[in-house]
C-alpha cells in the first residue's frame, strides 16, 4: 500500500467496512510512514471535532412530534391519504389526465357555450288581466278589436328575456279595409317593439274574425323583464285611425 491508497482510505472509508487484509496493510503502512500518521491525526481530529459538535446541540420538540404522529396514527388520515395520493407515482398520470380533461372542458365551454341560452327559469307574471286557467296574461279589447296574449311559464335565464304570444280578434265592418298592427310598449329600456309587420285586412274579410289567420310566428315578441303593454291599431289605407286598443300594464320578472 502506498501513501495515496492509505490517505484515500483514511479520508473516505468507514473503518468497519474495511476488509481484514486492507486493515492490516493500512496499519503496516502507517507504522512506517510519519506523513500518513500526521494525515490520520488531522483527519480524525477534524472528524472528532465535528462529531462532538453534532452531539452538543440540545434537543427540542420531541414530545410534541411524538404526540402529533401518534395522534395521526390513531385519527382519520384523509388529508394524509390525499397527500399520498398525489405523491404516489402510479397516481400522478391519473391526476394529470384528470387535470387535462378539466382544462379541456373549460376551454370548450369558453369557446362555445353549450345550449345554456335555452336554460330557463320560472317566470313571475303580474298581469293586468289574467285568466289563470289558460295562462292568458294580457287581455284587452273594445267592441272592434280584442287581443289576447299568452306568456310561457318560463323565461330565458341567460338572455333574460320573455317571449309573448298574442292573438288578435277583429270585427270589421264591410267598409273597413286597412292595416292592422300589433306592438309591444315598454319592457326593458322602455323599447317599443312591433310584433310583426302590419297585416292587410280587406273587405272580403271584413266580418271574419282575424284569429289564427295571422301567422303565429309573426305574433311573437321577445323582450326583457319589466312592465309591458300590448297595443293593437287598425288603420285605413289612407292612414286614418279606425280602431285602437291598448292593454293595461303587465309586469314580467325572471327571478
Amino acid at each position, binding site marked *: 500500500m502506498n501513501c495515496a491508497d492509505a490517505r484515500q482510505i483514511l*479520508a*473516505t*472509508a*468507514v473503518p468497519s*467496512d474495511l476488509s481484514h487484509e486492507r486493515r492490516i496493510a493500512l496499519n503496516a503502512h502507517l507504522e512506517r510512514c510519519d*506523513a500518513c500518521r*500526521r*494525515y490520520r*491525526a*488531522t*483527519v480524525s*481530529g*477534524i*472528524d*472528532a*471535532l*465535528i*462529531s*462532538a*459538535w*453534532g*452531539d*452538543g*446541540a*440540545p*434537543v*427540542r*420538540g*420531541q414530545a*410534541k*412530534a*411524538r404526540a*402529533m*404522529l*401518534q395522534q*395521526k*396514527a*390513531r385519527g382519520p388520515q384523509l388529508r*394524509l391519504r390525499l*397527500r*399520498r395520493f398525489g*405523491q*404516489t407515482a402510479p397516481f400522478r398520470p391519473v391526476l394529470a389526465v384528470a387535470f387535462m380533461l378539466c382544462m379541456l372542458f373549460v376551454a370548450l365551454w369558453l369557446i362555445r357555450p353549450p345550449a345554456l341560452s335555452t336554460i330557463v327559469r320560472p317566470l313571475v307574471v303580474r298581469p293586468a288581466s289574467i285568466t289563470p286557467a289558460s295562462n292568458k296574461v294580457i287581455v284587452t279589447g273594445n267592441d272592434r278589436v280584442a287581443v289576447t296574449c299568452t306568456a310561457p311559464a318560463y323565461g330565458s335565464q341567460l338572455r333574460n328575456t320573455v317571449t309573448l304570444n298574442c292573438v288578435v280578434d277583429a270585427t270589421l265592418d264591410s267598409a273597413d279595409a286597412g292595416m292592422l298592427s300589433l306592438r309591444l310598449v315598454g319592457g326593458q329600456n322602455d323599447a317599443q317593439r312591433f310584433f310583426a309587420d302590419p297585416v292587410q285586412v280587406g273587405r272580403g274579410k271584413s266580418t271574419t274574425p282575424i284569429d289564427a289567420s295571422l301567422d303565429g310566428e309573426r305574433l311573437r315578441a321577445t323582450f326583457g323583464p319589466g312592465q309591458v303593454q300590448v297595443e293593437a291599431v287598425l288603420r285605413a289605407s289612407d292612414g286614418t285611425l279606425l280602431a285602437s286598443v291598448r292593454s293595461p300594464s303587465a309586469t314580467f320578472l325572471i327571478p
Partner: protein
Amino acid sequence: MVAHEPSFEQLRARDESAIAALIDQHYAAIYRYLFRLVNDQRVAEDLTQDTFLDVFVSLPQLNNHTRLAAWMYRIATNNAHSYFRRARRFRWLPLDWRSSHSHSHEDRVADSDLVTQAMAALTDEQRSVLLLYAWQGFSCAEIGEMLGKRENAVKMALSRARRRFRDVYAALGGVVDPEVEL
C-alpha cells in the same frame, strides 16, 4: 428505557407503538443534524417535524430492504435543502463573532463556537456531507444516495469540506495541523 426496534410490518401499518419507537430512536439525531445544518432551533424543530411527517406519510411504501436511518436522513436533508432554497439565507454567526465575546468560556464551549464558525464557512452540501460522514458514520456511497450524487463526488466534497474547515478553524485559532495536505 431503550426503545425496541419496530418491525417493517408495524411501521407499514403505522402502528402507534412503532411510531413512538421510531421517534424515540431517531428524533434526537435527526434534530441535531438539522439544527447543525440550519443553526436555528425553531427552524430545526419545524424541519424535524416535517421530516417525521413525511416519514409517516411514506411508511406504507417502506420495503424490507430500506435502511431506515439512511432513508430518514435523506428526507431530512431534502427538507433542509428545500428550506435553504426557500429562505435563501443562512443564520450562521459571522466569522468575527468570537472577537466580540470574552474568552472566559470553558474550552469546550469555545471550541464549539469555533467549530460553528468554521462550519459556517462551508456550503450547505459540504456541511451535510461532513456531518453525515464524520458524525453519523454513513459511508460515502450512502451519503451519495441521500444527496443524489455519485460516490466519487461525495468523496471530493468531503475532502474539500475538511480542507475548508481546517483552514478556517486554524485561522480562528483552533488547534489543528495546518500543514498536512488534505
